[in-house]
């Protein structure tokens, strides 16, 4: 499991080159800045179509949207063939590329236990194309393809539980993170970096443009997602050992998180209650796993 670090232990070295073209207050740009601090320069980064987060000093190799798992696989196998196993292979992809169109390829890389690190800068929709619904979009969220109207209440289905699905591949390391908890995020990247095999880190990266909140509130939103249990922070080793990384005595009401965002502006009290019930129920299940320390299936 990752070891707690303090803000003063965060490396001062920056791997990003700025200013880049990300929007003001972009959560994904911050996710890139923090994650690459921990990854360091001896890394080959892979990109697929996604929002521009931050350019990094690492070599960067672009590829097809649907083949994120394959790009890292090919790179890793070539490094192995060439005797350069010291180089970190990272796929830094959005939620569309991880949860939806590239899911098959990443599942393939996971089940072969390729020595790669998949990091998802998860902003819960296809923001690069203007904010269409993805498998990572939470239920009821308004997106441009799940609008709100007399016949529609936003996204009708819940989001895909992708971290758990990858954990069930039995891979060495799966974790969630949030840009509002940077030391936790960096500790997890540092821990993952030291493990040989498939690593997956899902970073909640709020998008002011798509979620419709003021760019100054990116961290506030990301923090409330965790404090309300809407985006729990946890890590799973070998698909089995489980730990919650953030356990408040009491969760904040999910309404505090929802009300900050335009994408949830349309919600009725009843719908908010429905979301609260499902968040609480899932949180209680995670607490049990945390107590046992294992996923018992």
């Amino acid at each position, binding site marked *: 499991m990752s070891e707690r670090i303090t803000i003063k232990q965060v490396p001062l070295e920056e791997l990003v080159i700025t200013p880049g073209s990300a929007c003001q207050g972009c959560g994904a740009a911050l996710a890139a800045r923090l994650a690459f601090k921990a990854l360091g320069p001896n*890394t080959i980064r892979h990109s697929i179509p996604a929002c521009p987060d931050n350019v990094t000093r690492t070599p960067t190799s672009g590829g097809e949207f649907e083949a994120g798992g394959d*790009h*890292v696989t090919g790179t890793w196998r070539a490094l192995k063939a060439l005797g350069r196993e010291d180089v970190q292979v990272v796929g830094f992809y959005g939620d569309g590329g991880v949860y939806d169109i590239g899911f098959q390829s990443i599942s*393939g890389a996971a089940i072969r236990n390729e020595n790669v690190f998949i990091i998802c800068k998860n902003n819960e929709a296809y923001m690069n194309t203007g904010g269409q619904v993805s498998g990572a979009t939470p239920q009821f969220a308004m997106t441009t393809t799940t609008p709100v109207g007399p016949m529609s209440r936003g996204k009708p289905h819940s989001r895909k539980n992708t971290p758990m699905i990858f954990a069930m591949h039995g891979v060495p390391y799966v974790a969630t993170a949030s840009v509002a908890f940077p030391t936790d995020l960096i500790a997890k990247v540092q821990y993952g970096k030291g493990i040989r095999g498939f690593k997956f880190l899902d970073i909640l990266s709020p998008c002011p443009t798509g979620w419709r909140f003021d760019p100054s509130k990116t961290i506030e939103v990301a923090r409330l997602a965790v404090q309300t249990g809407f985006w729990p922070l946890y890590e799973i080793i070998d698909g089995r050992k489980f730990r919650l990384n953030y356990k408040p005595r009491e969760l904040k009401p999910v309404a505090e998180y929802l009300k900050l965002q335009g994408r949830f502006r349309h919600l009725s009290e009843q719908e908010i209650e429905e979301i609260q019930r499902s968040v609480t129920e899932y949180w209680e299940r995670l607490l049990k796993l945390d107590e046992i320390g294992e996923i018992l299936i």
Partner: protein
Amino acid sequence: MEHKSFEVMTGNKACAWGVKLSRVQVASIYPVTPQTTIGEYIAEFIANGELKCELVNAEGELATQAIVKAASRVGARTFVCTSGPGQLYMHHPMHGTSSGRLPVVMATVHRGNKGMQPDHTDLMSQLWTGWIQWYCENNQEVLDSVIMAYRTAEDKRVRLPIAIGYDGYILSYTSEPVEIPDQASVDEFLPPYEPIPNILPDKWAEAQRGRGAGMMEGFMSGGGDPQAAWRIHHEAILNSKEVIKEVNEEFGKRFGRKYGNGLVEEYRTDDAEAVVVAMGTIASTARVAIDRMRSEGKPVGLVKLKTFVPFPTEDFQELGKRVRAIGMIDRNVCLGLGGAGFGELRRALYDLDERPKVLGFYAGLAGAEVRVRDIEKMAEKTLKAARGEKVDPIVEWAKLGGGG
């Protein structure tokens, strides 16, 4: 006389031998009939310690192509193979491989897209992906082509991927004696591959100087001219003809076999009034038909079209000055447009002051058997046209079966 080692083997095994002799470092495979056994042979070579290669059993052809593309970029020699539907599924990353100017070599064991039997529609459907395309007529040519392909693709004047097509079943599962070149000679013929640019972190800064910080594929390049990415890619393929010829010549010198001039091979075209043009195994059968007709005193010949992309325009223009009619046999049809070979051939000849007649024959689609007599009939019709007799229609679906 150098030591020669023969083995009776299928086309797929010949292909795997080509991979082994070329010391491929990363290969990625996925099952689809009739190419599946190539991957099995490679896996066996690796399991027996005869080949040191990272073999990725991927989750589909889109994956196999994307994997070898990434591996090639890092600097490994890579191989991938497919057939029919798998070829179609692979389409998108094929663009990335060629736009990235990566010397991946692929075997396409032909399988049509209507049923499981062979025709060339699988690889022909990839004409727009920017790959060099070769077509083979026997198992020896399959093995030799794999080795020649790496030498050609990795040549710094080329740096393009090459697809080697050969007919499914007709070659893939048919056994015949194949000479296995000796490893030391192949090693001398085929120097190690060096990637451009080198993207290893310790080599990166130098490689990227002046190229900007982010590297994406072709579509991002081109500077001020948005068309440059297409233009440069197109010209690179056209310019590969000279290297293809050169590699074929050198292969011939070293191994005692070559394939025409690497682009086309003329067979008994001396004084021919009419020639037929054929690709793949139809070219092999056509040799017999031409021999028979020549023994009857008929002035006909054959052009085997090995390199379809880049199209050997100059060779056909030169031929066009010598013969009066050409019959193009297409084992493909671009629906609503026609045979790919027929169209390209006519395009190549259009600028001649005096053009030969060009007839078209669809033959061998969906695995339809093309027999010696069938080709004789096509050549007869072409000869008639050469002699000024009226032929109708100009383009026909050949009546196959060898009878009547």
